[in-house]
């Protein structure tokens, strides 16, 4: 699944939102598949169910998830991706943090990129350059 970091600058509902989006992006959750219920996800992440419900609501509003009445919540058949501007902004923020860490431990850009690639592979992201 994914891990919630309470000391992350991003609020927990956003971490859940990003976690679900990531699971969809790497194919761990496929279009049309059910997602865990609010209760189950709250239990396994040990977070307030209201927070999970809030994330699910946002994911539903943005067309990533769909609610089928009386059945549960599912990944949309064609889940919407985050807006490009939003994606770029998030990446820039994360990159700034990563660059700061890399500089503070004194590694080269090359080594930093190698680590990034390894993480990408580990999390199941495909390397689009080679595709």
């Amino acid at each position: 699944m994914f891990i919630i970091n309470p000391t992350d600058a991003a609020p927990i509902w956003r971490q859940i939102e990003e976690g679900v989006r990531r699971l969809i992006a790497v194919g761990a959750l496929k279009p049309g598949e059910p997602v865990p219920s609010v209760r189950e996800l709250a239990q396994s992440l040990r977070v307030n169910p209201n927070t999970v419900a809030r994330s699910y609501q946002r994911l539903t509003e943005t067309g990533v998830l769909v609610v089928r009445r009386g059945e549960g919540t599912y990944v949309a058949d064609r889940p919407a991706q985050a807006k490009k501007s939003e994606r770029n902004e998030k990446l820039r923020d994360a990159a700034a943090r990563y660059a700061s860490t890399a500089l503070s431990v004194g590694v080269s850009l090359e080594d930093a990129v190698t680590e990034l690639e390894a993480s990408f592979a580990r999390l199941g992201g495909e390397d689009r350059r080679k595709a």
Partner: protein
Amino acid sequence: MSNAMYENAIEVRDLTVRYAKRVAVDGVSLTVPRGAVYALLGRNGAGKSSLVRCLLGEQKPQQGSVTLLGHDSWTQRAALMERVGVVSEDADAPPHMKVSELTQFCSRLYARWSQTAVDERLRRFGIAAGSRFGDLSKGQKKQVALALALAISPELLVLDDPTLGLDAVARKSLFEEVITELADRGITVLLTTHDLAGIETIADRVAIMAEGRVVVEEELEVLKSRFRRIRYIQRPVALDAGAVTTRNWGSGAEAIVSDYRDQAEERFAAAEVEPLSLEEIFIAVAGGQS
């Protein structure tokens, strides 16, 4: 008592508690919205216990009032306690009493009692009905107390330092049970705790008390968004005037600010900006002179 609609599960208005000349609670007002998980934090002696006692109608405040589920907690205590589950700090019972005897005893005190719910929870916790209370571990005692508190399907659950003295496994199971209640029934939870890491993902609103007063009262998310640690490589001429705490090291400096809005603020140029955990915020706000 009627199950009247109420917007806020708890409303504390201008509450003052004095012991002789010592002021334990000093004009405190706070509101716990229905359905919230509200964490009341403070160092020992900050006034939490007095506040909780007034809340539960166990103590009459010198001034002010507490409204619980729409009713005055002092004058309506007996009726209110049918709808409020409490796990007290030192969950205790006669040591020779069997768990089954204890639940039977408690069942007679409440009109709204579900023995099935108690049995189910005890089974989940792995506590045999025949075991004597005195033979249980601290964690098991708390689990029994929680099972009893939830047997009346309370609208409000008050947990007074529920994880005190519990190991990691017992803590986890206790929080899981609370999460289940939240998901299934949408109850309101008020808790006091020293286990700030444990509640960081569960609480949605936080009050911090210091010396009898509430010094912080807001949504946890908002609280966390406005606190940051700033590390300056080169100490600025005027180290942030609004900082909560500041510290110099070498030619650099560190400050904790409580009014952070945006990484792009000028005062953060050439500085590292880092979010704080609830525990770090608590120490910055309530740490004071230790």
